[in-house]
């Protein structure tokens, strides 16, 4: 078995890399794939928190690299899906504790046993980023419809293009607010795609449920009703190779706005 190694990166912090990683991972596991999530954000780890696995971590990525434990010992199984595993980052160390080759060795090892290896990349373009992309052959660039995030995403895409190992990269637009796009206070999805000239893999609407899910330590994909959950599950299916139309996050509530939308569509 050769698994796919996908790095989830963004450049800017706080756009939802870790949230996307946890949710896409959980969604893929829900669909029956064996998935391992690797947190490479050494010193500022958060992925364990989103999955609610903080209290189960004994060994970390750094312990594996430094030979204090076997790779299998460091994998923490998810509470809900046993086919979802986490390789946590060390909290008491920093990014220089591992190097790119060591991460590549680990992802190559994990490829044999898992369908998907999702690498959570730290913010920035320094050592942490280099470590995270080392073993990956695909990338998902997370961005929000804000100028600063889009500019950083552009920089990241440039760096990814320069890497020979990265065969494909897709854009994940996060925290989209349809109402703000309507009132022209936020860049539309098309604007962002035009600026970055990059294929989309998903559009995630802003959802207050994300905050609740982080507090509870359960990925939002477990909640079937939420719109963000639906969007993340669609992203997982697109990664699997299905072709699904993008979710209509701009769900008009009344007939007037529906007509408006129709007319706007005709004008374009």
């Amino acid at each position: 078995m050769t698994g796919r190694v996908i790095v989830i990166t963004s450049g800017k912090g706080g756009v939802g890399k870790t949230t996307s990683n946890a949710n896409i991972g959980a969604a893929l596991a829900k669909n029956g794939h064996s998935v391992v999530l690797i947190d490479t954000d050494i010193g500022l780890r958060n992925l364990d928190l989103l999955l609610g696995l903080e209290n189960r971590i004994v060994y970390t990525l750094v312990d594996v690299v430094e030979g204090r434990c076997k790779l299998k010992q460091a994998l923490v199984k998810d509470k809900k899906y046993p086919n979802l595993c986490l390789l946590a980052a060390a909290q008491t160390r920093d990014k220089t504790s591992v190097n790119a080759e060591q991460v590549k060795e680990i992802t190559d090892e994990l490829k044999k046993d898992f369908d998907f290896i999702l690498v959570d990349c730290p913010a920035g373009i320094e050592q942490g980023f280099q470590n995270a992309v080392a073993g990956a052959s695909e990338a998902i660039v997370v961005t929000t419809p804000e100028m600063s995030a889009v500019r950083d995403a552009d920089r990241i895409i440039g760096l990814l293009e320069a890497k020979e190992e990265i065969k494909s990269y897709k854009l994940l637009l996060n925290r989209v607010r349809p109402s703000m796009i309507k009132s022209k206070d936020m860049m539309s999805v098309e604007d962002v795609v035009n600026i970055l000239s990059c294929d989309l893999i998903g559009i995630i609407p802003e959802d207050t449920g994300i905050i609740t899910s982080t507090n509870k330590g359960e990925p939002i994909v477990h909640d079937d009703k939420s719109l963000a959950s639906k969007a993340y599950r669609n992203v997982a299916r697109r990664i699997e190779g299905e072709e699904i139309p993008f979710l209509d996050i701009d769900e008009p509530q009344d007939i007037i706005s529906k007509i408006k939308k129709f007319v706007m569509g005709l004008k374009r």
Partner: protein
Amino acid sequence: MSKLIDGNIYLLDLSQSKSASDIVFDLSRFLDTEESSNKRICLKLGKVDLNQAQILSVKSLINSRESALVSLETLSKQTEAAALAIGLIINKTQDSSSEEIEVPEKEYIKAEDAPELVQQAEEQEGVVEEAETKTEEEADVSNELDVIFDDDKKMEKMINSLEANNVYSEKNGTIDIDIPESEYTKEDKEIDEFSTKYIKQTLRSGQLINCEGNLVIIGDCHSGCEINAGGDVTVWGTLNGIVHAGCYGNTKARVRALKLNPIQIRIAGLFSRKPDGGNVILVDKSNEYTPEEARIINNEIVVFKMND
């Protein structure tokens, strides 16, 4: 590949050899060297299956250099059986590839939920006290012996811990303060032998404290910090991080705090974790502190209230 252990005992690691002929080849390459004569050799083999004849030929190969095969380590059951039949000593090795994941599956137990454990603990303490008073003279002798043996162990531990400290102290975010040793008396003799380190500050996420002896922290320990101590850990404040008391194997070590709510408690080789729940730490505005203490009872980590 080979390592001189002591005087003339050699540990020869052939666990990478894939077949019997590989083993013979690697072995003869080693035997060609000067240092291989007149040695006692411990062989470490991998998963290769050997029969009696093959082991005997290996043995005679070693004997030809006036060395002797002392013991065998193997992962193969066939080899083990054959070696035993010949009369060789087998060193047990664990198949490291099949090691199970060691995850703290157990949650720590609150004493009020398990009254029978409390009773056991009280009984145990009573028995120990009685035994100590009855055989005072014997105890003295054995204590002296213990000290002698302990010293060696302590040296080893200290060296290990020093190495560990060196690794960590190069990194940022690590505190390694040398605070003068001070006396700290307690009933527990084993723990009493350690020195005690005082830390007066709030430990934040990512901060790591390694300490050979007992540790007293005057301040809070936020979640994400890690505390390792050879002896007891006492926190005059709230304890939310990961704590490891008796990290060199002392099962009598204890963890105590004014508010004990750590992500994980580890004592000696035991792990226990906080019950699953939300990530949000609600700020407890009440000033009511119930000091609690965690210790090992019957191979389980139990948290006691210290209100009496």
